[in-house]
């Protein structure tokens, strides 16, 4: 009667060729699995340089053994607990053994990122930046053209909440009333609100571009139309200088920043939706280095723009005359473009 289920069978069977005592299998190897788990728990919390050669070698050895155990266990059983645990251990081991090594974050690396890598990313992706800028500029032209052709279009294009008073009245009111911002607290609070809000908007434009391409272009175009229409109403009402002095100083940074955010989205959207001959995963991974640097650059520019908008932009002509404000706007715009797009001397290659 020794012909039990676990005896070796000769014919082709649907069970494992040599039925294995799973309890024995587990008992024999449980110790190494637990050891691997505790090692992985340790190194998860450690910086890379603190791992140490001894621990590393043991971890790699245990990881390989566990991989073999997983393959073996799959042949013997479909037990969800056992396979789940081994699968998880092998996965964690794989993540540790084959990960990219992290460079230690240093101040030098941060300076390098800000001074060289972000501008380089923008220069590398200048085509999408141009495309995003074109969508925006076409929007401005369409908006302005529509209003100049027929002033009634302004009411159709510009959201109703901006239509409380005519540009002319608004200019008079703002230039007569006491200053809106009369303390640094107000300026700081308003600026902070503005850059938080603008970063949200840029991220939305970025995300829509990344997901749909068309959505990003449409958002840029729509924002352009509104700006163009508003500008045209001020021009028609005979107060263009007010508009440019009021919007210019921060707009010179804010508008490019939104275009940059949109461009980063378009770059990612191209990688996601038009991967060409590459797999989507590969084409996305090629886009990431440029995209995250462009996003970071966008956020930094928006913080600066928000602070300018909260303070300098809000002062009336009695304190800062229009020419000064428009001049500052031009200088900021040129500085921004020069910082990002002017080719710099490459650092000397190490001998």
């Amino acid at each position, binding site marked *: *009667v*020794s*012909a*039990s*289920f*676990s005896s070796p069978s000769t*014919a082709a*069977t*649907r*069970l494992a060729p040599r039925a294995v*005592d799973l*309890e*024995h299998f*587990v008992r024999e190897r449980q110790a190494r699995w637990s050891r691997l788990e505790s090692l992985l728990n340790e190194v*998860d919390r450690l910086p890379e340089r603190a791992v140490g050669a001894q621990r590393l070698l043991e971890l790699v050895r245990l990881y390989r053994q566990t*991989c*073999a155990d997983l*393959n073996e266990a799959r042949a*013997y*059983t*479909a*037990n*969800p*607990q056992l396979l789940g*645990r081994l699968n998880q251990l*092998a*996965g964690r081991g*794989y*993540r540790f053994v*084959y*990960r*990219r090594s*992290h460079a230690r974050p240093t101040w030098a690396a941060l300076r390098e990122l800000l001074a060289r890598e972000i501008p380089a990313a923008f220069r590398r992706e200048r085509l999408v930046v141009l495309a995003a800028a074109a969508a925006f500029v076409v929007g401005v032209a369409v908006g302005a053209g529509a209003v100049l052709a027929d002033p009634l279009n302004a009411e159709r294009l510009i959201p109703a909440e901006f239509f409380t008073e005519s540009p002319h009245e608004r200019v008079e009111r703002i230039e007569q009333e006491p200053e809106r911002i009369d*303390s*640094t*607290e107000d*300026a*700081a*609070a308003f600026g*902070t609100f503005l*850059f*938080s809000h603008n*970063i949200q908007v840029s991220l939305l434009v*970025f*995300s829509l571009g*990344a*997901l749909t391409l068309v959505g990003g272009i449409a958002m840029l175009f729509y924002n352009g139309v509104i700006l163009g229409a508003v500008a045209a109403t001020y021009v028609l009402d005979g107060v263009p200088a007010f508009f440019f002095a009021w919007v210019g100083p921060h707009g010179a940074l804010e508008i490019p920043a939104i275009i940059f955010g949109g461009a980063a989205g378009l770059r*990612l959207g191209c990688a*996601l939706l038009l991967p060409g001959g590459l797999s989507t*995963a590969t084409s*996305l991974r090629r886009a*990431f*280095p440029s*995209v*995250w640097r462009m*996003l*970071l650059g966008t*956020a930094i520019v928006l*913080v600066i723009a928000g*602070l300018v908008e909260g303070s300098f932009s809000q002062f009336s002509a009695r304190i800062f005359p229009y020419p000064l404000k428009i001049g500052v706007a031009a200088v900021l715009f040129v500085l921004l473009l020069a910082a990002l797009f002017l080719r710099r001397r490459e650092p000397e290659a190490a001998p």
Partner: protein
Amino acid sequence: VRSWRGRQILTPEHVEIELLPAGLGSRFLAFVVDLTLVLAVSSLSGQLLVSLLPGGFGMVVYGILWLGLQWGYHVFFEVRYAGVSPGKRAVGLRVVDGRGLPLSLEQSFVRNALRAVDALPVGYAVGAVACLFERYGRRLGDVVADTLVVRDARFGVFDRRMAGGRAFNSLRTPRLLRLIRHRVSLEEREFLGAVCLRAPELEDRARFDLMDEVGRFYRDRLEIEDTHLSGENLVRGLAGVLFAERSTPRARLESS
């Protein structure tokens, strides 16, 4: 509740590892924990900064800090702690690269930037809907960054004593053992083991129905003629035969 397909990774050791996507509920829970932490830290530091630093300076620092916390919190933990933020640790989740590796700084940046869309219009509605339709149950940010939130909880200890251990088993006959070898697959053996392991958790009525159904199936499959055997006894007996320990003393086997 639907379960999503796992993603298969082939390691250089030629072992297939499966990445098991986490469900919506656990991810939302983890997010709520993280959000609470961010709000607590930022409101506390906000009070401090605004009252300590002169003029509007505290406000600006606080604004930048709030931005940094809101967007940098997830990036920091995902990169520094291999995809585990405090909330995810509490719930037992981990963000990994779509290829099974730790996610990189740039991936973390992108997946968190797309929260701007996923969080629309309120409470991550867009992200939740995307999860329902995506193959691996990912929100849009994870799709674009090619990352995956996986379950990282501890698995229960392997224990199958409850399934086996029937010293006297009328099913252990040479004829039935031969039929089992030919007609019961590996998966079915595990299924029967799982039924026995979970039976105590079932309600009496449900357990009876389940056992009856499974028993009827195997009664036909294995041509068992003993009509007096109840479904439950048949299933438990079969499981006992299937999981009989090799180390069982021969005397015990022979006595049956």
